[in-house]
């Protein structure tokens, strides 16, 4: 029987980690789809050879475009919930059941898997934590919500949000911006504790220069799109 939950796994040059992530996902009885975002390494070949359900974008759209492809797929196929899960192994699939049960219990529009709601084994570097703290206060200020882990990509949304994201999703660094948009439109956002691992392969897309751009861009766009 088809599940009512779709797990969206955006992947860009993740040949080292993708199979391990997929194997872990297969243990659960949920539908999933890998969005191969125009990878230039062997990700596409691996997905084909191992018969992994996937959508291959002919060119690289960036994280926003890739994740939105997943939401559009979820919308077209009538899924009630969609979960984003990173292909690099940082998100722990063992938390999927917990995320779904909390979503059904609390009934928010969006539920974030947080590393900081309670004490977890997560050890992020100082600069990353400063960035997260910055976005925490930004969200409090402009959206009036308290989110301990605003940059977490491990999140589950309901049908209403799936339909929104299928129409409108930021191109890059979407995590914080969508929270501002949803909160200001009156959507409910909640958090629940999850564990996160160190990445199993590939490199983070955010370096020092990019993180400054990330913070400036998200602040600027969130302010403008919230108040105008």
């Amino acid at each position: 029987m088809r599940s009512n939950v779709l797990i969206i796994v955006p992947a860009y040059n993740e040949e080292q980690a993708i199979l391990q992530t997929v194997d872990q996902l297969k243990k659960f009885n949920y539908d999933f789809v890998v969005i191969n975002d125009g990878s230039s390494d062997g990700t596409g070949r691996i997905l084909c050879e191992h018969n992994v359900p996937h959508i291959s974008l002919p060119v690289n759209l960036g994280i926003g475009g890739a994740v939105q492809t997943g939401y559009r797929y979820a919308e077209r196929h009538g899924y009630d919930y969609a979960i984003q899960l990173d292909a690099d192994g940082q998100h722990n699939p063992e938390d999927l059941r917990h995320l779904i049960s909390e979503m059904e219990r609390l009934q928010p529009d969006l539920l974030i898997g947080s590393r900081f709601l309670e004490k977890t084994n997560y050890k992020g570097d100082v600069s990353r934590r400063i960035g997260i703290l910055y976005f925490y206060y930004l969200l409090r200020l402009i959206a009036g919500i308290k989110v301990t882990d605003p940059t977490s990509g491990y999140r589950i949304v309901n049908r209403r949000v799936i339909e929104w994201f299928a129409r409108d999703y930021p191109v890059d660094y979407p995590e914080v911006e969508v929270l501002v948009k949803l909160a200001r439109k009156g959507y409910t956002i909640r958090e629940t504790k999850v564990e996160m691992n160190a990445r199993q392969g590939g490199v983070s897309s955010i370096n020092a220069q990019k993180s400054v751009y990330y913070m400036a861009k998200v602040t600027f766009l969130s302010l403008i799109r919230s108040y105008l």
Partner: protein
Amino acid sequence: MNIIQLIVSGAALLLFILTVTMTAKNKLTDQYAFMWLAFSLLGVLMSFALPSLNRFATALGIAYMPSLIYLIAFLVVLALLIYHTHLLSKQEARTRVLVQEVAFLKKEVAEMKKKEDRGL
């Protein structure tokens, strides 16, 4: 008509001819062809109006008339840049949708092929 007026009207005329040629060869779509035709004609008109621009500049408090021309040119180029950035953003959004649609179709075709292979 003095020399500078001749140069300006000549340049505007060249722009007009270039626009007409590109439009005829379908290298410019209607919307942009019309815009550049309007610009080139405006250039010709400006060449005739150059002497009166002196009075206009004085009325605006600009002592040196060419500064007024630079100001007008700068504002026009700025407006054009914003317009083209807007178009670029629109095209990017459309391309994104197209890429996603192509990916969906590729997936559907692959699934159909698999089903067909199993049936054979």
